[in-house]
């Protein structure tokens, strides 16, 4: 198990870092599990006490990094409400699948100290582990993605947040005729993340 440095107190900054790190791994996992990129582009790393797959393709890596670093900035400012990863068919432009992570800020300003920080770390890790496992397990029920697919990341940010130039306003890109599955959640003492996946359900 990867050793996580034990902090006496999880500050907002620390919690944000944890959250954005989680997003990075979650995005990588989804890209691998849903076959957006070929499996040989991924390598196994040990994280959250489980084997995770992260891309080794430089282009994809920097693309994800760019998104994550901006997410991190917003999370630090507490400006973020939701993050969604939308998988789209490249040819038809149809949105096929939508992974939504709801970010709930439990306490914005007052970082209270935790009685047992080490225990809290392991609890978070366990919860994240369970969520990642669940993402992995979704391949068993999610429909096969047909054709070449690509993905987009949407962010529900506060209206007053600063927006860099490469982020533009968008519609929510909800899936039509969708089935929704609520996945697990995890929480730090600052944030609570819960996850759901919506996919096209064509009987």
């Amino acid at each position, binding site marked *: 198990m990867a050793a996580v440095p034990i902090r006496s107190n999880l500050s907002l900054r620390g919690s944000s870092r944890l959250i954005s790190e989680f997003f990075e791994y979650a995005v990588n996992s989804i890209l691998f599990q849903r*076959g957006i990129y070929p499996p040989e582009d991924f390598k196994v790393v040990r994280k959250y006490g489980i084997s995770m797959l992260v891309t080794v393709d430089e282009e994809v890596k920097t693309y994800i990094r760019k998104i994550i670093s901006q997410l991190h900035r917003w999370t630090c400012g507490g400006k973020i409400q939701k993050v969604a990863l939308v998988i789209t068919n490249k040819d038809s432009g149809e949105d096929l699948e939508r992974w939504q992570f709801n970010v709930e800020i439990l306490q914005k300003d007052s970082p209270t100290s935790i009685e047992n920080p080490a225990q809290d770390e392991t609890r978070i890790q366990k919860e994240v582990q369970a969520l990642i496992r669940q993402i992995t397990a979704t391949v068993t029920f999610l429909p096969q993605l047909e054709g070449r697919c690509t993905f987009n990341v949407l962010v529900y940010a*506060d209206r007053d947040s600063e927006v860099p130039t490469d*982020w533009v306003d968008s519609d929510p*890109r909800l899936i039509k005729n969708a089935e929704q599955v609520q996945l697990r959640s995890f929480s730090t003492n600052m944030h609570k993340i819960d996850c759901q996946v919506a996919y096209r359900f064509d009987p």
Partner: protein
Amino acid sequence: MDVSSNLSYIPKFSTPTKKRPLVYPNSPITPLHQQALLGKASRSAKKSPTKASSNFVRGSPKLDVVSSDWSLSTSVSSPRAKHHCSNHSDRFIPSRQNSANAFVSNQKHELSAEYNESVAEACGLDLNTRILAFKPDAPESKKPVDLRAQYNRPQKPVVSQTKRKFATTPERVLDAPGIVDDYYLNLLDWSSLNAVAIALERNVYVWNADSGDVGGIAETDESTYVAGVKWSQDGTFLSVGLGNGLVEIYDVESQKKLRTMAGHQSRVGVLAWDRHILSSGSRSGAIHHHDVRIAQHKVGELLGHESEVCGLAWRSDGLQLASGGNDNLVQIWDARSSIPKFTKTNHTAAVKAVAWCPWQSNLLATGGGTMDKKIHFWNAATGSRVNTVDAGSQVTSLTWSPQLKEIISTHGFPDNNLSVWSYGTTGITKQVDIPAHDSRVLYSALSPDGRILSTAASDENLKFWRVNDSETKKRTGIFSKAGPANMTIR
């Protein structure tokens, strides 16, 4: 004078008038001021476009004028506001902008803020939220991904050697003229010293696989024939079973007969060595143990079979002997016992093929004749049958591969083939069928290095197959100097 005084007056009056505009509280707005003010107004209009613009249109006529101006109308921004000002219409084609629609749109315009709020509330959206998308496109996938191929991988084959290639042509063919076509005889054996003994009617020839030399070692009386040959384990002695029931032992070095052992009433078709003990199976169904070192050679007699014994094999440790007979029985004997430990009646035809597994000492394979076609696998410790395969044709011999987890069977009609089977923990699977001879494959023997199987058939060919070799390319070794690839034994 007056004029001059008047003239002198003028500057006096003019100076205060010049200052006046600066002092006047309600000075008229200069165009410059006006523009600056409008700029402010338009900026505030940007912040809340709907309310502000409608206020301007109604509120001050001055601003109304300005709003119709091109440069500033853009700041009012709503396309509807533009429509409001334009006045192009046709007599026949009613202009939508000017008709009732325009009114509705205006009304909507006014209400839009409240309307938006209510809609947003109904949809559960938060007006304070913006949905932002990361604009750059995600990098292209290098190649299409088919998850089906990824997850529906064919199961790993039971035996990883499935893919190995088999040499389907004999490495060498020798003529063996006059070989007797009799299922119950055993006329071929390969010694640990790399010499192949083959019996052709009344003669026994030894072909040296190293040098390719052929020499006759034994010749019987005209009244009889050779029924079985078997090398001793060290390869220095050759035992020969005769049609008249005699068993002879030859020294391969001096090519001399060492002794003749009598005892059987009928032909001795099968022989098996365990160090100094030679066991011989006879047509009568009796199996004799001969201690070849002593004068009173007969040290044991096993009377289990009621018909001709045609399969006989000692386990490599010498603790058990397996025999197969024309009475369809498989019997397993303990070395020091004269009653069978197990008698197996599963075969429905004569059992000639009997082979102990070299890597699992308890495992015995036996193959049945034409009516049976089965290969049974036995646990010789418990007597239980551990596996069975239907070979599809008469089983004439069985040979375990010492290196690979495989067993080779030779067959008769219809294909006269060799079959290689993998013997794994999950079962037995056929690896390959190799059509071998023109008639049934009667005899087989494995080379001392375990890689090459020699087979002989009544088509008078002695063929060598590199079947146990995972490398198919020909290598020098067992046939290093063995003479031409095509030669006659006698």
